[in-house]
């Protein structure tokens, strides 16, 4: 199914569209260290795409390339059929690519609501005068964006903590608030950097459910990094496997599971 360029409908009724983002021969170096070596893969509209690999495989670096935090020395990033010039992270974000961080980057001093509202900043156009007098565009925008944010809070079941300062929340909830902020931006592509890292089993199950629901409900394209294999295999449509900066496997979870190079490098033993 994934070998055909046109869109198709999966067995569970979701539509997978054409290629939305394509990484072509990406190479990223830090001084003498090669973090990513000549990697190519694509992300199709509406799919959940996972990048997995052992520690230090270059997964996070890859995510940072996609989100503009790193600029690769070689290779091209294609987005919506156009080659993307080298960009700053905020410019990438404005193109509709939202992300979360492995170590949670929230605005600790602000409330949950304020944090999630920052996700809407790029949807606000009102000028400073309109805002000063709370008239016209400003008033309408604030109400609209507030509604979107409330829906997101509701969807991720965190509406009860909307007024709580983020610094007081437990780890699992912080992760969810970060997801809410990214989701509030109404992204074309949602990048999740180890969304389940450091979570207990119950929290992991919740997070998996939210990721699937987001994809199902809004049709959001999701690219995620994770090293918890079991979770990834359950929720993703296709998986890229990295090891020491190289791509050693790419395909559906089933294909990847039976790929000998992947088994050797990552799994150690075959799972049946």
């Amino acid at each position, binding site marked *: 199914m994934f070998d055909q360029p046109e869109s198709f409908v999966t067995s569970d009724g979701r539509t997978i569209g054409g290629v939305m983002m394509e990484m072509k021969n990406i190479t990223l170096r830090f001084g003498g260290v090669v973090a990513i070596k000549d990697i190519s893969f694509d992300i199709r509209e509406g799919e959940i795409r996972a990048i997995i690999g052992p520690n230090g495989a270059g997964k996070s670096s890859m995510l940072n390339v996609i*989100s503009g*935090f790193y600029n690769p020395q070689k290779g091209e990033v294609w987005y919506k059929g156009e080659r993307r010039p080298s960009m*700053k*992270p*905020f*410019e990438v*974000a*404005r193109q509709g690519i*939202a*992300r*979360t*961080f492995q170590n949670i*980057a*929230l*605005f*600790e*001093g*602000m409330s949950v609501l*304020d944090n999630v*509202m*920052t*996700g809407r*900043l*790029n949807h*606000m156009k*009102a000028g*400073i005068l309109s*805002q*000063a007098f709370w008239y016209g565009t400003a008033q309408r925008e604030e109400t609209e964006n507030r509604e979107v944010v409330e829906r997101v809070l509701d969807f991720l079941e965190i509406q009860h903590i909307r007024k709580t300062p983020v610094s007081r929340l437990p780890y699992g909830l912080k992760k969810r608030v970060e997801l809410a*902020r*990214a989701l509030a*931006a109404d992204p074309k592509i949602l990048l999740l950097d180890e969304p389940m890292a450091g979570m207990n089993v119950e929290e992991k199950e919740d997070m998996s459910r939210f990721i699937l629901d987001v994809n199902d409900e809004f049709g959001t394209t999701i690219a995620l990094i994770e090293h918890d294999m079991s979770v990834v295999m359950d929720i993703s449509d296709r998986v890229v496997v990295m090891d020491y900066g190289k791509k050693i496997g790419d395909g559906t979870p089933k294909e990847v599971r039976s790929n000998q190079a992947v088994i050797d490098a990552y799994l150690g033993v075959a799972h049946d």
Partner: protein
Amino acid sequence: MLPDQFLFGVEVMLNGLMAGVLYALVALGFVLIFKASGIFNYAQGVMALFGALTLVGIMDGQVPFAHLINSIFGTDVHHFGWHVPAFLSILLVMVVMVGLAWCVQHFIFRHLVGQEPIILFMATIGLAYFMEGFGDLMWNSEIKKLDIGIPQGGSMWIEEATSFLGGTNFYGFFIDKLEIVASLVAVVLVIVLVAFAQYTKEGRAMRAVADDHQAALSVGISLSFIWVLVWSLAGFVALVAGIMWGAKSGVQFSLSLIALKALPVLMLGGFTSIPGAIVGGLIVGVGEKIFEFLIGAPFLGGATENWFAYMLALVFLVFRPQGLFGEKIIERV
């Protein structure tokens, strides 16, 4: 009837409050920039001077860089011969301050992203002396009178209304009208700033940047835009401080030294707290006047105002290094 000595003390305290408002204004400029970018802006005081100089220059129709122009072209121009109304001049200076903010970001700090704080600090020292020289070259170094129509002199109304409090030697509180105006302006300025930070999208972005740079980038906030914004706001605050100080004691280069008084204010209030800057300013203003009145003048031969604030800051540093409202410093081992 209250004892005269007590009433004089109250008067001293009131005057201290007014002086404190001006300290607070300068400190506020420091806090804005420090919060958003981690830069301790040594040039804040010079920005106040530069703002005031430019204001006088524009109002009096001075030709900028007159000395330079005259020595190159052999001309003898000093004035355009017009006078610009105060209100319009202030608007023009605000534009100049935004331009200055843009230049500072574009030519200096854009190239220093991710550098050590001490390097950023050094850059602001360089900037301070550059601006002092530049201001001198642009508007020359004479002491200038700044009159934008703020009422000056003691407020008769307050004097008369309070004269009944004491005996025959007490004629009521002497409070300069200029200082009352300065206080009112400062209060309005602070309210506007807080409302801006709290309720506008730019303000929300500004708070976001102050909190976490990475996260701010990931939601599409341009850091350099926010930095130009905070330098502009700090420029406006500096301009207001410059106007008040300039109206009180003339626009002169010693104005840039006020910035140093803001240091102990920041030590008290904390480098990251806007309310801290205000309360710190008031404490220093009142503290140094009261200390001079009660202890300095009678026992120590006076002039304690020069060092009192620094001593107070030193004591504070020892017992509460993060200041009154600063974020608590917790070091994890």
